[in-house]
């Protein structure tokens, strides 16, 4: 059956491993089937490998409402992308889809150049209080930063990952050497004349940019990495969906397993008096960031922002990404948050489908 002929065909582009397909299928099975039938909307779930560009078809096992038969269907006119692609031929295929005037993408990509995100946010005057001072990488700047600053962060341009972040700090009185260099779960101490060489070695030819660091806030001897999930609920409305605290990298002398906590609870414990202010700052900074980024990346609709905090609870943006691939949210005790995250994406997709029909664009 060619769903495209109904003019209300929308779909999710998911990863190959079947996990995302399973989640969205369950949600559609449970909650949406009846409502989809009322709206006369068909939703398909597919991977990039399921797309036949030449014949403009998608081979999908699942089309909702579930009374519709799957098989070869027309490529949906609106696609919500929750997948990430690294292989050259996949990227080429994706780019061909982006060029298609009949297809609108939501979250075209879920992986961004972090330095570009920093630069875009820096163009917004109200970003200055949660953006750390940033410079493109060159050896002279690194040399200056290491000499002059207490904490230097080297953020990977292409991998929004705390494990890849390099932190250079001046050693304390009781530490060995002049500097400590942290990378993922490893810590090195080094002398002044070795710090640049050791840092370059750790960079391993990957691209980094230089950020004036802070001393990150610890909680139970672990650095708090705050992740704020933000989604576009409807046109011009961004909403913070959830905030978690997690541990993805290990600090000096710390040993722990990956953990996820509710950020609210931790902040309440650390900042009993200013808790509400800190929480609001996280939320406002995140919404402000997304609202500004959307102007340059108009397809953006689901993303997360990773922050470190200083000792008074000011958040500082470290990483930004689209649809979360590590699924930290799914590790929360309260699974309804995870379902809500997907549910919001589904609602937004349906809304966009309905709008497009109304505008007569399909």
């Amino acid at each position, binding site marked *: 059956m060619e769903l495209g002929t109904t003019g209300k065909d929308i779909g999710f582009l998911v990863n190959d491993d079947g996990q995302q397909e399973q989640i969205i299928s369950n949600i559609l099975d449970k909650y949406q089937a009846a409502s989809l039938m009322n709206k006369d909307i068909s939703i398909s779930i597919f991977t990039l490998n399921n797309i036949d560009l*030449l014949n403009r078809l998608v081979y999908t096992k699942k089309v909702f409402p579930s009374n519709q038969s799957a098989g070869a269907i027309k490529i949906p006119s609106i696609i919500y992308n929750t997948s990430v692609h690294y292989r050259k031929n996949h990227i080429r295929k994706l780019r061909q889809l982006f*060029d298609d005037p009949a297809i609108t993408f939501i979250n075209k990509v879920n992986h961004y150049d972090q*330095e570009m995100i920093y630069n875009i946010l820096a163009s917004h005057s109200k970003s200055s209080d949660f953006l750390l001072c940033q410079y493109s990488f060159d050896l002279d700047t690194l040399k200056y930063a290491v000499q002059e600053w207490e904490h230097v962060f080297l953020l990977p341009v292409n991998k929004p990952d705390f494990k890849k972040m390099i932190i250079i700090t001046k050693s304390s009185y009781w530490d060995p050497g002049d500097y400590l260099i942290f990378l993922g779960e490893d810590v090195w101490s080094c002398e002044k004349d070795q710090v640049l060489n050791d840092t370059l070695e750790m960079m391993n030819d990957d691209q980094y940019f230089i950020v004036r660091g802070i001393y990150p806030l610890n909680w139970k001897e672990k650095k708090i990495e705050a992740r704020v999930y933000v989604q576009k609920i409807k046109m011009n409305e961004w909403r913070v969906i959830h905030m978690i605290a997690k541990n993805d990298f290990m600090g000096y002398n710390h040993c722990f397993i990956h953990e996820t906590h509710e950020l609210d609870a931790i902040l309440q414990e650390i900042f009993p008096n200013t808790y509400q202010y800190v929480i609001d700052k996280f939320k406002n900074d995140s919404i402000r960031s997304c609202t500004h980024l959307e*102007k*340059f*990346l108009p397809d953006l609709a689901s993303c997360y922002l990773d922050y470190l905090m200083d000792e008074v609870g000011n958040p500082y943006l470290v990483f930004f990404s689209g649809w979360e691939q590590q699924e930290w949210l799914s590790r929360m005790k309260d699974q309804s948050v995870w379902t809500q995250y997907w549910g919001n994406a589904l609602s937004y997709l349906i809304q966009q489908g309905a709008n497009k029909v109304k505008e007569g664009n399909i």
Partner: protein
Amino acid sequence: MMWVRIEEIILKEDIIFIPQSLVSQLEATVSIRFGQKRIEAQVRALPVLMELGGETFEHPQTIQMTPSLIQELLIVESIHLQMMITEDGIQLGPVIGLLLGNENYRYNTAYMRRHSDILGIYHQVGGLICAFSPETIDWEKKSAYGLYHNYFNQGWEYGELPLPEVVYRRNSHTKPQPLHRLKQVTGGKVFNSERLGKWDIYEIIKDCEPIKPFIPETQMIKNFSEVDEFLNKYEKVILKPTYLSRGRGICVIERVKDDGKKLSINHYYSNANYKMFTMVGDYGKHFRIHDYRYFDEGEIFTFSSWALQTFLEKEDFFVTPYLIQPLLPLAKINGSPFDVRIVMQKNESGEWIHSGTECRIANHGNFLTNISRGGYALFLKETLQQAFGYHMNTELIEKEMLQLCYQFCQAMDQTGEHYAEFGIDVAIDIEGKLWFIEANVFPSFKGFKHMNYDNYLSIRYQPLLYAAQLDGFASQEN
């Protein structure tokens, strides 16, 4: 015309302060134009002591504007502008846009370095040079979110920018709807406005009498019988995808004698990175395929007629738009064929001019002359002398080539689209006959960069000079 820089003056109303001599030419309230942005403002005279400079880019006259004006016009403070008094008021500019595609996630400062060469003459033009995607245009506000060139930092910065009056397109990844709207909004001042495939260009020029004799027989292939017909007529044919450039997707098929190997396909597997053929005996006509789609050197297979048909069908040659032409017996130097890339551009008067010529010599043993396929560039005279000897009248050949290119550009001007730059590929066969191979709307200048850097730079600069005059501004040297 005067060179100016803008300084903010904190006052509540919309006021512009300009030199006294200009105030007397204007009404008390005028329209100020910056790109597509327009705003009414009161005009006042600057203090006499502030009247200084304005003759050159390096020494601009400081003019003052109130914050509301600067914000409304989206004026970036770090630029030097030209200021003109027009019939309805004041025009600041030029505002020139580089049109990016729809891959907004890629447009970082590193990406923009590819456009940095054109800015070598910024000091002649001044104004706001910005780059934006059609997807980030706010049509109501007449603005776009993108990057602008900060001459003083020598870098690209993000911001909200006025929608330009003139747009230089050098990117094919643009959806038709916003492009169409942009053409309308700018009054047709988007140049290199349409991406044209090889077949589109052929369709435009095939009946153009002065060009017709130079075009090789060309056909869009839809089935094997059309390929077979060409192969009966020509010993060697070339299959070209209509929408790819830089030698991508090309296959050359040559008719060969039955050498007794009698090969055919009985098993076939292919994807974008890998393919495999197993061959068994077969009888009939034989063909050799030089497959440049995945391999720079051109993988060679020998097929029977039936196997060739299977190959072409399985590899989607009749689904993807491909055209077929005879493989011309191109003149060679040191055994390698060459063609000639001629760059035609519009000058500040809007006339087509010849900006550069390079000969592109194929890598040894290769049919493809593209620089990106290992070809290299040489000067025309040198190449022709090596190919045909010193007795050849190279000036006459060059004159004929340029004549052909001018005729092509004139034909393209009749299409109703706006073009200001072409990379035209012509070739000379072993008998000295001239052929029109193809033309590129977004040509690569790689060969020029290596062969003659000054010529390369002048080619890169020309669109900026053209764009400035299209916006009504002159360049400093003029």
